[in-house]
């Protein structure tokens, strides 16, 4: 039982991390129809910016976290101007290819700026562990789960209960109709890019103490985030969360009770089964048809 609880906790933590990534990834799909493969580097840059602010500028962790989120939002804004606006109206594959190219360039730039060696970031609670009923709980994992719950809940409330949230949803569902209704869809898209990048910064900062900061850390995460997006349904925020959690938990339980050799096989098997039963994911959105 201890093992089951321990592994489930670890699976939920990883699931929340995947959900963070999938959420940010999904936001740009939902709001602008852009599958942004440079998202992996946004997460990586979030972690590197966090490390720089803490270890070079000596900022306290909480301030470094806020500054990282803010700087990443600015990065999203810059991206919107430099990359996404010139690509508007182009074929889906053109945009995808461009974002892959940018991801490769950003990775090389990260090596030039931060060097080739791995870095680490301290946690908010030190390296101590709390033992509850035979289960070792690392406080940073709880922080990740709590942040995910608050953030996802808040995002859901904001999207469905506020004017700007409803405008964003309208932009996602039908940009032409939204424009005719007087919604400034360009501003809404800019806002979605900034929010997506801010989420990437938050994800990068929070996973840095667990993951070790390397120039390739975001890529593996994005693959899992992409898998979560596919399982949950393209463009579905709810789907991104459930997809992330499903993959995280299945991976952990599979590696424990079946075999660590087949951990990834199990994850991809789940994706195949979900896609066979529900080809548009667990929570399909109309945006999937436009991609």
């Amino acid at each position: 039982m201890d093992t089951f609880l321990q592994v489930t906790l670890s699976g939920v933590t990883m699931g929340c991390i995947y959900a963070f990534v999938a959420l940010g990834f999904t936001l740009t799909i939902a709001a602008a129809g852009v599958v942004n493969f440079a998202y992996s580097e946004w997460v990586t840059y979030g972690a590197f910016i966090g490390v720089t602010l803490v270890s070079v500028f000596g900022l306290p962790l909480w301030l470094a976290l806020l500054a990282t989120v803010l700087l990443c939002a600015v990065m999203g804004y810059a991206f919107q101007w430099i990359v996404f606006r010139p690509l508007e109206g182009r074929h889906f594959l053109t945009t995808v290819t461009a974002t892959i190219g940018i991801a490769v360039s950003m990775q090389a730039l990260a090596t030039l700026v931060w060097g080739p060696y791995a870095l680490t970031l301290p946690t908010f609670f030190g390296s101590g562990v709390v033992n509850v009923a035979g289960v070792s709980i690392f406080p940073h994992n709880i922080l990740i789960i709590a942040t995910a719950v608050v953030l996802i809940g808040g995002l859901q409330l904001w999207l469905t209960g506020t004017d700007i949230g409803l405008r964003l949803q309208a932009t996602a569902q039908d940009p032409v109709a939204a424009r005719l209704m007087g919604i400034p869809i360009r501003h809404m898209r800019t806002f979605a890019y900034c929010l997506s990048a801010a989420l990437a910064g938050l994800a990068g900062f929070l996973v840095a103490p667990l993951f070790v900061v390397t120039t390739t850390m975001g890529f593996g995460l994005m693959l899992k985030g992409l898998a979560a997006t596919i399982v949950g349904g393209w463009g579905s925020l709810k789907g991104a969360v459930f997809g992330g959690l499903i993959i995280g938990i299945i991976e952990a339980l599979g590696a424990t009770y079946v075999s660590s050799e087949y951990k990834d096989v199990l994850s991809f098997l789940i994706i195949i089964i979900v896609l066979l039963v529900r080809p548009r994911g667990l929570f399909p959105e109309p945006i999937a048809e436009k991609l």
Partner: protein
Amino acid sequence: MRRIPTLIAASLFTVAFITTASAQSTITLGMVVGTTGAFAGGEAPLVNGTKLAVEEINAKGGIGGKQIDLVIEDTGSEQTGAINAFNRIVGQEPVAIMNTTLSGFVLSQIAMIKDEGIPTLTGAASAQLSPDRKGIEPLFRIRTNDERVAAAAARFAAEKLGAKNIAVLRINNEYGNGWLRAIEGVLGELKLKPASIESYEGPDRDLTPQLLRIKNANADALIVVGDPPNHVVAVQQIKHLGLCMKVVLSNAGVLPTTLKLYQPDASNGIYGTVDSLPADVPENKEWADRYRKAFNLEPDYSAAEYYDGVMMVAQAIAKVGAGKDAVVKELRSIQNHKGIGNVYSYANKGDGGVSVAIGQIENGKLKLTTTLN
């Protein structure tokens, strides 16, 4: 107007003459490594060691009056990138190539290395590259064969630490598989069976399931095999889960740049394998100080081995000239050559480095426990 073509022709002739003269006054040393991508951190010391040797040789007047021109091509830490980078380097007509340390990449270049016949030195440690397996005449290993290092780790765990239930947590690639085969071989000789064999993929950052399986198998020692980030995650999670078995890390786990990443309370007492601890040897002090000054880093065995490699090539060229066949033949005659990072033998199907050392981490530093030559 008629003078313009004449002037252009004269300029081109001058440029060609200068270029040829310049090319004749230098010797090109090629290097194929990952300067970007996942393995850039692990391969950076190789570049440092090579640069240090080249600078030293050039400062002393070069080889036979010719300066060494080091040309580095990036693999991007990818297999196809390694093949392309090797091709680009071959186009520069180097006297020798300091190649990547990733065994899988070197295995994919084998046919090209054989065809070109350029002396190629590598830190790739897979047993597959031994002269009696897939190793070839122009390929020289400047490291200790993984089989030997992994076997030393297993023997150390069983004989020195007294472990009876030894578990293995390995990265799922050629490097991890090579270690596993060697460990299983030693345990078989000792009439022991692995308590548990677990694997993970390179990008995995949660090893809780694997570590819990190892814990539930009542392992009293654990050998962890992987890259620097994998070791950091493993050591951190071993502490979080309260696992109290003895731990032996593979080489990447005790590199100076990896040691910096551990929480001191999590890594204290953990063992690790290395080919050598070059900075701990008094006669290497001048070299180690020079390395620290040049790169602001603590030197490690891999940097020392690439330094040694360049020095061996330089000595061979100084003796027999820069012809690739002559250099290969000269390098193949090396027997028990003591360098900074290892002792090398290539004569009589020698497999390169032979030294293995095991150290223990104490307050972020690796202290020598035992040496096995």
